């Protein structure tokens, strides 16, 4: 299972750190707060940790089918020298990687320790509907990965629980996907059917 989350730093207010009392305790585990206090750019790290938690929540939700708002229960630990992260969830751990850019942070989480997938980030103009735009970008990318596939062959649906599903001519060739949008950016991730994880 995979999940992603993107945070547009200008929309989130990355320079606005520690905005409210008690905020930290409600969102970040003490070990994460130590990372924030030790960091030179805590305003950005705050949102990186948030994106990692949210991406892990999406994986956990797909596994547990439980809705929950408990960010402090998804605890991020950087894995030294790998650039990856381990995120403890209410049931087990997930793995994640992230990209930190000047304008956004994006996180991709997976239940597998090693995962290959297709990811993309696009800038979305304020006149676009971000939800439709990210789907459009996803469909374009799927057509690149499957050269014989045309846009009209692709059908995007949502499960009753809100989990996105993608069909190509009626088949689930895309094993799993996740979409996210925030502010000026959209992000998608998908893995192919029958992909073996090692």
């Amino acid at each position, binding site marked *: 299972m995979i999940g992603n989350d993107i945070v547009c730093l200008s929309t989130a207010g990355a320079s606005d750190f520690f905005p*409210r009392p008690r905020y930290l305790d*409600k969102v970040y585990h003490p070990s994460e707060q130590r990372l924030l206090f030790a960091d030179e750019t805590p305003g950005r790290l705050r949102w990186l940790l948030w994106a990692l938690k*949210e991406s892990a929540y999406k994986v956990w939700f797909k596994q547990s089918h439980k809705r929950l*708002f*408990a960010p402090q229960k998804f605890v991020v630990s950087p894995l030294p020298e790998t650039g990856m992260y381990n995120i403890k969830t209410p049931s087990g751990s997930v793995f994640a990687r992230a990209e930190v850019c000047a304008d956004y942070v994006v996180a991709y989480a997976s239940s597998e320790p090693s995962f290959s997938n297709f990811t993309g980030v696009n800038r979305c103009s304020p006149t676009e509907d971000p939800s439709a735009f990210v789907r459009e970008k996803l469909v374009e990318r799927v057509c690149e990965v499957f050269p014989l596939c045309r846009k009209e062959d692709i059908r995007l649906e949502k499960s009753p629980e809100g989990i996105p599903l993608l069909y190509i001519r009626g088949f689930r060739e895309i094993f799993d996907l996740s979409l996210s949008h925030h502010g000026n950016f959209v992000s998608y991730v998908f893995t192919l059917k029958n992909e073996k994880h090692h």
Partner: protein
Amino acid sequence: MEIAEITEKLRSIVRPYVDDKSLLENINGDTDLLKDLKINSAHLVDIILDAEEVFNIEIDDEAAEKMLTVKEAVRIIAERVNAKT
């Protein structure tokens, strides 16, 4: 405090975090803060902190976990407000 009064105050609390204000017009118990009002999950923390200030209560993590619908949010707030009186 009456449920209707709590619901009205909650509507004012969530308002700044809802982009499409027309969504606020049809709020009812089943309204989902994330799915129906399209509130970004990062703002749920702000809503919980705002509710604590407005109602002068404390919402612990265990209760906050369930604050995903108007019905649950009102129930959690009402329990705490009415426990004080």
